[in-house]
């Protein structure tokens, strides 16, 4: 695929918009929000990220990644016009068909906004199908917030309630958002659990402390969805790396309800 556009989200996080080099694939390629792919920097290898763009928009996919290891460092060095490899879409997706007509609560931390953003835009592109939309998004500091332009856009929309927060000490003098950890702000935002689903993604510690808050607000585990990440190589159930007990994250996931996660061995 060709990098059509590269955006620096933070000093170490980038978003690529990728377009297909084969017009036939561009025509037929489709995916669902929550699915992932394997992205190649030729010479360094492959990394697994979610598809961060909405499934409602055809002809391209976007991915957002943090420069952390060998492959993401090599990907970071690429720019618009360069070629990268993509395999996918793999895995399951957020069950948006089940969520039609319901109120949606999105909770994300740091780069965990990437898969959640795919769902948010998919929902906003077909806004009339869903009820209220509440978004709680936090990062360690103001400079760690990703998709800053889109946060502004969501903040300005009458049909979206957006809560932004940064960890204590991560604020700047002109920061207008909340200060505090994501679970605290979810409790403060107190979205109603009536006819609602919650969609979460963030660091394990954020998930761990947000789930009890959602329970307290009355969300049933079967109506809370998150996306797990495990180290993966093949993405298609053969390389033996991503099992959590009997579950293959690449095939049975990456999207699981809190109810399903509670049944899994705690090895992720």
């Amino acid at each position: 695929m060709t990098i059509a556009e590269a955006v620096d989200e933070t000093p170490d996080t980038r978003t690529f918009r990728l377009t297909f080099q084969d017009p036939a694939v561009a025509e037929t390629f489709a995916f669902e929000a929550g699915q992932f792919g394997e992205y190649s920097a030729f010479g360094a290898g492959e990394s697994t990220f979610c598809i961060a763009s909405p499934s409602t928009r055809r002809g391209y996919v976007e991915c957002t990644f943090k420069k952390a290891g060998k492959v993401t460092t090599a990907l970071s060095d690429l720019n618009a016009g360069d070629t990268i490899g993509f395999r996918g879409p793999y895995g399951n997706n957020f069950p948006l068909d089940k969520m039609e007509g319901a109120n949606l609560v999105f909770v994300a931390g740091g780069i965990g906004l990437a898969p959640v953003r795919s769902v948010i835009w998919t929902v906003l592109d077909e806004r009339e199908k869903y009820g209220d939309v509440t978004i709680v998004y936090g990062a360690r500091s103001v400079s760690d917030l990703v998709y800053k332009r889109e946060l502004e856009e969501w903040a300005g929309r009458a049909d979206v309630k957006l809560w932004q927060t940064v960890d204590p000490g991560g604020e700047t003098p002109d920061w207008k958002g909340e200060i505090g950890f994501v679970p605290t702000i979810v409790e403060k935002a107190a979205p109603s659990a009536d006819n609602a689903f919650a969609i979460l993604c963030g660091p394990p510690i954020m998930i761990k402390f947000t789930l009890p808050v959602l329970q307290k607000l009355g969300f049933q585990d079967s109506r809370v969805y998150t996306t797990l990440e495990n180290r993966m190589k093949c993405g298609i159930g053969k390389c033996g790396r991503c099992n959590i007990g009997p579950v293959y994250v690449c095939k049975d996931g990456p999207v699981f309800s809190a109810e399903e996660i509670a049944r899994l061995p705690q090895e992720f």
Partner: protein
Amino acid sequence: MTKAITKEALTGLVAELTAAGVRVIAPAKAADGGTDYRAIFTLADAILGGEMPRRSLRAVFQPPTEAVFGWERKGTGIELTPAAAASQPQVVLGARPCDAAGVNVLDKVMGWDYKDDMWFARREATTIISLACAEMAPTCFCDKIGLSADATVGADVLLRPAGEGYTAEALTAKGEAFVSGHARWFSDEPVTADPAPPSREAFPLDKIEEWLEGHFEDALWADLGLRCLGCGACTSICPTCHCFDIVDETDGTAAGTRRRNWDTCQTGLFTVHTSGHNPRADQASRCRQRILHKFEIYPKRFEAVLCTGCGRCVQACPAGVIVPEILDSIAQRANGGAA
């Protein structure tokens, strides 16, 4: 259909195959004196019915390292050259029944949802002729996994020792075609095969699977983890272990090869995230994963245990982590006994 073949006829058959450009793979002596599955040119090179080859047949169908594709930078683009699919016809002669069974077990995951073309290209080009074992080594436990010294699963043709020669039973369409295609070497003389060594009672694999399901947390894992060195020897010689890594190798900066390499679940590197977080951070969880994958995860998904009782891991483990002993111990626990 069961036919017979003498050693002389088998010698002729191997000569005919190699002359026709068919690669014949059989247990044979390696340069260091050990026995491996290797390409042979005459039957005299093969050691039929000898000691267990050091590595299983997995390497015949999925080599320890193989190119997936080559890539080359062309301006801002990348040109990919897929690795050529293996197509040379080959015959495995004298496969251990446990090793043929292992290939059959792996077909399930390799064909799951997305067909692994590289695996199946080699499978299609290969005819497996197993040889029933005349005796069980002390480390063998195929019978306890539900196979036997003359198991047929995964083989196209099964030879059984019969005095100075063999009986030959075609088991699949491919096996039938092989026998009828080389009919002049096989005779219809009725020959009686030597009796196979008797099978012991199998492990209660269903009960073991059930126990594993309910005992993710158990003192057993800590015990194994303390003994295990995490060397991965067991996974490198197993007929059914199939975990792999995908890596890029570069030739300079403008070209390179993407390769698939065998990997092992027994090292911490296997599951460590870039962040440093590791879901299996200790040896106990890695030992548990190996046992779970073989006796709970795989059976649940594919209705087959990921083990053929070949006993190589029993021979290879430097730390006394012995699968049949572990299964015995789990079976006792499953039956309410202390182990």
